[in-house]
């Protein structure tokens, strides 16, 4: 039987990094006990990002800019913060990525180990021959109450992994899973926030007992011991708990992988795999990596890097991502982006944002996949496609062939920064962008601050939340432009 494992991996972190000191200082009068957590930063998603959009971004990083994505046959999406309780969330991701309709899309949720569980599923599916190329993506954008420890512990982010049998950078050796109804926190449908039990109990009775049990189970099955582990991955918000568990399992505490708690925070379902990405971008051939997760039990996966790892050069490493963030010292902006305060939206914020689902489906390729048209007669590229081509003096009928815009670069033709229209992050930037091969779209810009854009600047497309229809509980997605 051929090897199965990871052929590519990439993470995505939102641009903004909330200074934790900013948070603890703002809340010092209310929650002085949190002062000790006021160190470093955590990632802070833009208001228009959620677990789906962040997953799309991570997966794009492993797929590259190639239009042909037909080699992907299965997509697993793992998150505890799926935007929809009943709408296939991985189906949204599929549509945005223009994966084939035949791609099997599976949502895995309800536990922080959903990311590792999804990876195990993908590995098993590829191993069984039922998939030749599966993608696993995990993302979380968890909401925490203002002035809570979780607000400082959490981070927003995503990761994507290609699971295949060829060009492996890390070979899958084995895994072990425990499913235990240990309730460190819970959240019922419709609830915004987790309810958390006492931290000491979670640490001592949860992590310290459950994780080693799963690790030892894997060691036994794989006939190895802790001394052979080169990288030990266990996300946790408890200081040094990872080292304690490593020691307990015979793993050298120096092999414990930095959990990025002071730069990224805990990205929930994504975090074990995000840490795996940070290891693989630096690993050497023949290294054993133990990936653990905790939540409703524990998953433990063992990988060994291959010779190919020396050629694994991601366009943007986790290290780059961490370094390239922009520190945000405006706690109010964080609260506003995350809908944690009642702020005055003005009458313009009252506009009815009902989405015509018929229209959305009729134009699904155009809206979700940013697919336009190319006139087979004149070659004119346009967005959206139309029955009659926009080609000047050549209004050809039914000549449009699908043309994908999402991975094309564009340049800003015209723009404005609008303070009048409703925006959660004013001023509202938008303008006309011209694409490298032709075609243009008047489009929203995101992840930009005032004064950061101008005509002629190069931009790329990102999949984001367009509006949230709070009346009906619907998230509308579309593409936006960000500076390259």
């Amino acid at each position, binding site marked *: 039987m051929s090897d199965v494992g990871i052929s590519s991996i990439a993470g995505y972190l939102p641009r903004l990094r909330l200074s934790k000191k900013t948070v603890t200082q703002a809340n010092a009068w209310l929650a002085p006990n949190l002062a000790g957590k006021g160190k470093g930063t955590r990632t802070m998603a833009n208001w228009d990002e959620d677990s789906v959009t962040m997953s799309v971004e991570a997966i794009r990083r492993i797929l590259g800019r190639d239009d042909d994505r037909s080699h992907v046959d299965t997509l697993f999406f793992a998150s505890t913060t799926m935007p929809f309780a009943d709408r296939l969330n991985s189906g949204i991701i599929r549509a945005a990525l223009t994966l084939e309709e035949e791609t099997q899309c599976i949502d895995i949720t309800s536990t922080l180990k959903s990311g590792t569980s999804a990876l195990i599923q993908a590995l098993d599916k590829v191993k069984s021959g039922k998939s030749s190329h599966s993608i696993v993506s995990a993302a979380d954008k968890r909401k925490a109450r203002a002035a809570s420890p979780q607000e400082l512990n959490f981070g927003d982010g995503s990761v994507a992994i290609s699971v295949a049998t060829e060009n492996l950078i890390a070979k899958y050796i084995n895994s072990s899973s425990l499913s235990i109804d240990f309730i460190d926190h819970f959240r019922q449908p419709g609830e915004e926030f987790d309810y958390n039990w006492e931290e000491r109990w979670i640490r001592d009775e949860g992590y310290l007992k459950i994780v080693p049990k799963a690790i030892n189970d894997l060691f036994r099955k794989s006939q190895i011991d802790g001394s052979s582990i080169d990288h030990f991955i266990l996300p946790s918000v408890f200081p040094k708990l990872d080292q304690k568990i490593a020691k307990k399992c015979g793993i050298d505490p120096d092999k414990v992988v930095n959990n990025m708690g002071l730069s990224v925070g805990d990205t929930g379902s994504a975090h074990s795999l995000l840490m795996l990405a940070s290891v693989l971008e630096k690993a050497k051939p023949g290294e054993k990596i133990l990936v653990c997760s905790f939540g409703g039990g524990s998953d433990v996966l063992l990988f060994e890097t291959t010779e190919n790892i020396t050629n694994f050069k991601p366009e943007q490493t986790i290290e780059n991502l961490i370094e390239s963030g922009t520190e945000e010292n405006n706690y109010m902006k964080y609260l506003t982006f995350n809908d944690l305060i009642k702020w005055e939206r*003005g*009458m*313009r914020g009252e*506009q*009815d*944002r009902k*989405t*015509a689902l*018929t*229209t*959305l489906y009729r*134009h699904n390729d*155009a*809206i979700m996949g940013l697919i336009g048209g190319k006139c087979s007669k004149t070659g*004119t590229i*346009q*967005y*959206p496609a*139309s029955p009659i081509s*926009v*080609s*000047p003096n050549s209004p050809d009928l039914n000549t449009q062939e699908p043309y994908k815009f999402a991975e094309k670069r564009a340049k*800003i*033709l*015209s*723009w*404005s*920064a*609008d*303070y*009048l*229209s*409703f*925006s959660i992050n004013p*001023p*509202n930037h*938008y*303008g*006309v962008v*011209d694409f490298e091969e*032709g*075609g*243009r*779209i*008047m*489009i*929203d810009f995101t992840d930009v601050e*005032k004064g950061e854009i*101008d*005509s*002629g600047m190069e931009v790329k497309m990102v999949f984001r939340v*367009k*509006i949230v229809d709070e009346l009906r509980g619907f998230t*509308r997605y*579309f593409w936006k432009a960000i500076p390259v």
Partner: protein
Amino acid sequence: MATGIRDKVAILGMGCSKFGERWDASPEDLMVESYVEAMEDAGIEPNQLDAAWFSHHIDDIGAGKGGTPMSIALRLPNIAVTRVENYCASGSEAFRGAVYAVAAGAADIAIAVGMEKLKDTGFGGLSPTNYGTLTPQIGPSGSAPGNFAQLASAYRAKHGVSAEDLKRAIAHVSVKSHANGAKNPKAHLQKIVTEEQVLNAPMIAEPLGLFDCCGVSDGAAAAIVTTPEIARSLGKDNLISVKALQLSVSNGLENQHNSWDGSYFHTVRIAAKKAYAEAGITKPREQISMMEVHDCFSVTELVTMEDLFISDEGNAVKDVMDGFYDADGKIPCQIDGGLKCFGHPIGASGLRMLYEMYLQLQGKAGARQLNNPSIGLTHNLGGQPANNVCSIAIIGALDA
């Protein structure tokens, strides 16, 4: 080959309500105000009206849909009333309908009334609108100033104008309109402003500040048209006739095709060429006496000066700063204050522009009367730079 509209139709009477924040006035009050003035000016009775056109853009906060709001408000004698809507160029559309009906011989006398009641929204500026079900899903979540402001970035990039120079030129556009509006008792805004005030005003949409944006107003305007022969038979002389009426509508090219550079109005250039040809104008910079253009935003007016072939391309900044379009300049523009100060009750604006040209041509413009104007041009734009309708009308003395 169409012979065009030139001199086939004369204006028999016009009226215009006071524009502004008419908290006291209902849509019906506004219509009646403009109608009574127009009917008195025409010197006719309601039963002499054969057909009517009613322009009204935002029906959900105004008078409602259809022709009935006008027919009921004015108690018209059960004649045809056609409600027209073509964005902010709706007023010109109503005028076009009435003029064409008369030219076709389908009506002896026709009336056009435009009305908008905007100040019942509860906030400043125009209310956000959904344009169908697809556009909101793919278009930016913008506003009118944000769309028009984009002209500035593209114009600067194309002509190499600095942000400061362009900001100062568009400030001059607004300073000039405020000076003109101060002489117009029907104008919404009647105070002069300084360049410093304009430059330092709060930003609405880069680079447009508060004073770069026109007033959002309540108001109505009306025109009654007939043939020159009938006008004379009714005892009118020194007739003002329609010289040209052109409408050019975007077909998606600007929004979807890379050939448009974002710095000008594609439709305006097309409509202007056709209008000049229809009116027999060969040298607009010499032959046109005055203009009312669609200065929804100061930058719109600036680029429009080039699109109407008055200023050479890239030269509008210089002409504006030289005072070419000031009240004492070669071609006074927005002599009534324009949209900027007279105000912009959408459905009424095209007719309001014609009203000022009509008064000026008759020497009835009071404190702002120009010296012997003979040809007036109105430019009424709807939509936004990348997707719009442009209506151009030229009127003048029948024998001019």
